[in-house]
């Protein structure tokens, strides 16, 4: 009888055969509060999941960092928790963006991992420290395999994650268009560029050069 393969074997099988989604393609932009209604209408017209009202989300994102020996850059892991509902915590690793200028979108390695709620304590025991945290609240749309989020970023008063007193960071919404796909799917970027064109001139979705933003992680 065929013996069971180990988890490590099936994982490398998924990686080698390119069906493990591990690359994030990303375009970002922003829109003023006063104009966000127009964008919502446009997205409702373009996207798939609009039979009812757009899907909302209200997440707390905590970024944890681990200082590594022999490396200047700390390892960052982002843990997301839904504030409004009971759902598994989501942990995400994001790599450095690729330097290829010809690609229409930002491309970086990405790993998503659902976990039980002990994750923050687990990471703390591993030596991770809190880097920053914020709340993202907004709407999520889908178009094929593309995900579009329109969200408000909210600053947290330390120790008051649930509090209504927390204030928005700015007078605008951040708009993100992303796809997480396996390695080697070059047409994703083009598909996204075409979609981004359709949102102009309401919002200008761009490939953001993180290096130019300076000390940002």
């Amino acid at each position, binding site marked *: *009888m*065929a*013996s*069971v393969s*180990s*988890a*490590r074997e*099936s*994982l490398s099988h998924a990686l080698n055969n390119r069906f*493990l989604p591990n690359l994030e393609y990303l375009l970002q932009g922003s829109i003023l509060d006063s104009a966000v209604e127009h964008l919502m209408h446009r997205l409702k017209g373009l996207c798939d999941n609009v039979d009812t009202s757009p899907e909302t989300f209200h997440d707390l994102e905590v970024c944890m960092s*681990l200082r*590594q*020996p*022999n*490396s200047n850059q700390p*390892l960052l*892991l982002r843990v997301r928790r839904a504030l409004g509902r009971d759902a598994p915590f989501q*942990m995400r*690793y994001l790599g450095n963006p690729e330097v290829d200028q010809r690609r229409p979108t930002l491309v970086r390695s990405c*790993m*998503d*991992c*659902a*976990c*039980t709620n*002990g*994750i923050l*304590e*687990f990471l703390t*025991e*591993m*030596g991770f420290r809190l880097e920053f945290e914020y709340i993202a609240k907004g709407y999520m749309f889908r178009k094929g395999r593309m995900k579009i989020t329109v969200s408000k970023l909210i600053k947290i008063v330390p120790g008051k994650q649930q509090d209504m007193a927390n204030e928005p960071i700015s007078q605008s919404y951040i708009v993100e268009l992303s796809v997480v796909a396996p390695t080697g799917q070059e047409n994703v970027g083009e598909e996204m560029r075409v979609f981004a064109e359709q949102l102009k001139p309401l919002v200008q979705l761009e490939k953001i050069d993180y290096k130019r933003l300076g000390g940002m992680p």
Partner: protein
Amino acid sequence: MGVTVLQPYPLPEGKSGAHIIDQLGKRLLALGATHSGQFLVDCETFISTPQPHNGAPGRAVHVLHNSEYPASTFSIIDNGTGKQVSLVADNIFDLLMLKMTNTFTSKKQTKIESRGARFEYGDFVIKLGSVTMMEHFKGILIEIEYKSCVILAYCWEMIREVLQGFLGIGVAKEFPSYFATQTIMTAMGQQQLHAKHNDIYEPMDTVKQYLEQFTNYRKHVALHGGMVSGGGQGGPTVGQPGVHIPPSSMVGMGRP
């Protein structure tokens, strides 16, 4: 999912592991159990590289997989001061661990696994596992699950009876040591007795029992190595108190 109990099976002297497993398998089939595939539980331990500058003690992250839950990775961190935190995550967690190789290095030589045949017998699932570390045979672990109940206290007697029935050895009446009453600290910092056998059973409990046993096998190797000159007398008590294991049968178990 139900309650699972893990028991080490003492290896009689002069018998090979494969022979015993074969015998137990035949006995199960004769009882009316049906063979239903294979199973695998593996464990890899990552040790943090010491950080003398901030005085942090060495931490160990144990990463385990159980073929019964193929989409999950189980991990338990031991912070060196006796505190343990456990986590269940998607398989991708394995790749994340590889991102931390600068801080957490895998102790490859202690990679250990239990694999073997899986049997179903009414509401029971029985797994006959042979434990190997670095391809060396270490011993036999019997896993028995009673699928219709999630609290050990309610079904231990029945599990025990089935175990005795096909193992042909006596199993102590007391709850297995993993489920024994233990003192815990409450959130208020008070000590409290906690009866684990009354808890609702979770898949993590199975994994923790495996880790407990795997740790024993690993320790045994370390101790055994140092005892060769002493004639191998009086090996450490490896098994749970629930099973009567003559110490003599444990010594030399690790040698092929």
